């Protein structure tokens, strides 16, 4: 199958490691229509992406960072769904805005483009889920957070193991604004995701937590870049994963302190549990700095499940698979707890447990 570059690593390295570009297979199916509304009930804040006023284009442009061609071009050209979500200034949205996309026989292909515009001082959580059994999904979400806005994006992907998934998120964070990102994407046969956050203003914050789960022959490819430009910004990246069967995964996490980001702090941590002898895990924690007055730290831990933990659980009467499931669940819990919808949280958990049972 023909491949194309999806998004490159910020600093290239040895080619034999195969980590320089996120690549994904080009979809072979035709992009038909997706006629269902992802919203359970109408919400005045959510309009079709086609209704995006021209005057907001400049903000879309600023959030363009993740839109690395040709992924952005493909989504913009072929999109069959998408929303423009505007959160009014100082508006606190208590109930999460939930977009639920379900692929099925009637709508096997989804290409969605989202733009979230969080006005000054607003607070909101937007949950976007991709579920069901289809051919492929390509997505592009851009966010512009004005000063003092707080926006939490939750991405959940529970597609079947027949589905091909590639999703890209680009975020511009102005001064004193906060972006939270939670991703639970254990589904799909092939998954390629990109997150790029630009902490452009002073005191901006990015707080990202993700989980991934690989089994059978699945391949997972993630490229997260947190770029710190403003003074006193804070960036945090916490990623938990488990791999079993013959699954493969690449996670690239970049903390990029740009010159002028004085007083900024960046943290990155990835913990991977390896559960089968045929898995392949590649971890690439980059830290780039053009500024001395920063505090950056990254850590990666890759290994088998802690035998002491397993032994303890088994001494309490659990068999080995049960004990393993419990340990994986415990590792994923901090991420799952950030998913605000109880039913969705339960579904993610059940999805992972079901697949762990196959192991």
């Amino acid at each position: 199958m023909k491949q194309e570059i999806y998004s490159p690593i910020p600093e290239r390295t040895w080619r034999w490691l195969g980590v320089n570009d996120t690549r994904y297979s080009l979809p072979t199916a035709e992009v038909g229509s997706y006629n269902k509304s992802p919203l359970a009930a109408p919400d005045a804040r959510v309009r079709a992406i086609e209704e995006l006023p021209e005057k907001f284009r400049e903000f879309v442009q600023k959030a363009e960072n993740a839109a690395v061609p040709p992924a952005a071009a493909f989504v913009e050209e072929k999109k069959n769904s998408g929303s423009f979500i505007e959160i009014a200034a100082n508006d606190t949205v208590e109930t999460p805005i939930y977009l639920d996309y379900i692929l099925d026989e009637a709508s096997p292909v989804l290409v969605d483009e989202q733009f979230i515009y969080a006005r000054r001082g607003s607070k909101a959580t937007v949950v976007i889920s991709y579920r069901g059994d289809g051919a492929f999904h390509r997505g592009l979400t851009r966010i512009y957070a004005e000063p003092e806005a707080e926006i939490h994006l939750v991405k959940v992907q529970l597609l079947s193991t027949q589905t091909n998934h590639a999703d890209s998120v680009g975020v511009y964070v102005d001064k004193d604004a906060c972006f939270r990102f939670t991703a639970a994407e254990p589904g799909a046969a092939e998954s390629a995701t990109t997150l790029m956050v630009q902490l452009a203003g002073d005191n901006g914050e990015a707080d990202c937590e993700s989980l991934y789960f690989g089994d059978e022959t699945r391949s997972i490819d993630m490229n997260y870049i947190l770029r710190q430009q403003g003074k006193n910004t804070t960036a945090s990246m916490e990623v938990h994963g488990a791999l079993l069967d013959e699954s493969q995964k690449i996670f690239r996490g970049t903390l990029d302190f740009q010159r002028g980001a004085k007083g900024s702090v960046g943290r990155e941590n990835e913990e991977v549990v390896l559960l089968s002898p045929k898995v392949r895990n590649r971890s690439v924690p980059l830290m780039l700095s053009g500024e001395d007055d920063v505090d950056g730290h990254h850590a990666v831990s890759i290994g088998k499940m802690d035998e002491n933990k397993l032994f303890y659980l088994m001494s309490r009467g659990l068999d080995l698979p049960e004990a393993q499931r419990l340990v994986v669940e415990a590792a994923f819990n901090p991420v799952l707890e950030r998913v605000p919808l109880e039913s969705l949280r339960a579904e993610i958990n059940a999805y992972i447990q079901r697949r762990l049972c196959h192991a």
Partner: protein
Amino acid sequence: MEKKKTFIEDIERTLYDIKNEDKPIYQTQQGLTADIIRDISQQKHDPAWMLEFRLKSLDVYHQLALPSWGPDLSELHMDEIVTYVRPDAKMTGNWQEVPKDIKDTFDRLGIPEAEKTSLAGVGAQYDSEVVYHSIQESLTKQGVVYTDMETALREHEDIVKEYFMKLVPPKDHKFAALHGAVWSGGSFVYVPEGVQVKIPLQSYFRLNAPGAGQFEHTLIIVEKGASLHFIEGCSAPKYNVTNLHAGCVELYVKEGARLRYSTIENWSRNMMNLNTKRALVEKDGIIEWVSGSFGSHISMLYPCSILHGEHARCDFTGVTFASHGQHLDTGASVIHAAPYTLSNISTRSISKAGGIALYRSAVKVTEKAHHAKSSVNCESLMLDDISRSDTLPVMDIQGDEADIGHEARIGRISDEAVFYLMSRGISEEEARAMIVRGFVEPIAKALPLEYAVEMNNLVNLELEGTMG
């Protein structure tokens, strides 16, 4: 309140920058052609197979592209590099026979003095040829061979033929191919089974000719249960034209053997240092790398350890200091290719005055390497906001029986630490100097004493105000 910057002196270079008149007895044309390769081969009285090897390497060189990653190498014009410069000196084992200007150069660098006090053998290369080699008689009696590569090719041709560029084949990358085509000089060490070489051997490489390349080949074989500490030093005076260093080091550490390979690289700031080093470590063998990168304009240096036998082990300790006009892309790679192998990588880097220090590494655990363990720790200290410090580690792990940990930090000198030391009666300047010395201390500890002193000179800081 405006924060003041610490001012840290560049490494004292005067000693290294004294240049001799460039008066080679012979040198090739600039550039790289099959005729030039034949010319080098004829000058060196190569056996036929070596000429063939060189010409094949040249073909590979032309087929390969420059790396698509790393520092910009556009300043390197191979058409302008002289690949072979024979100094006006013959290889000798008697220091008094070395021509005076060359002897004075190595005297200034302290090589003969070190030989007297702390080394069991010394090799000195000037431009493309080794001019002096010696080894303690007691080692010779035990069967230890320490000689220049040309002599080794004559006197131990079978061994050289078996090992030469087998670990770093010319097709590995463009500069390995270049090395295969134009290599000259370097050291050959053979330590027989069970022999412990307790005092280090040292080879020193000096490139005096402007616009020239140095392509020395170091081949070390430490047989079963033997041990060796080998030290490599390199320097050159500064010229306004680009010089190139594309050496190659191949280390074979056999079962239960131990090799420590220490390098202090202090090339001048017009040098492109594109060096390749690799070790193959068999069962229960240990390779220890101690690597200091202080000089050169551009460096691409990542010693690689292939842990080929069960319980083989690699310890890598490195320090990189990048200042104005320097882009030092350094690091290490380890291939865990056997069960129960172990690797520890520990690096420190300092960047200042617009220098770029990039740490690059790869830890690969193959399917066969169950119960492999690896621990990587790298720390970077930036002394101003016009410099860069980047880390780019990759871990590629196959299988589930591996235990891999990686940690990296980047930052500046902590105000709290300075404050604490000052509260104990230490002046601010001394407090900061102590912290920087402490930062590189794990590396200094791993160096032989005389190099630890050189390192201390490196961090002999002139401090002013606060670090900010």
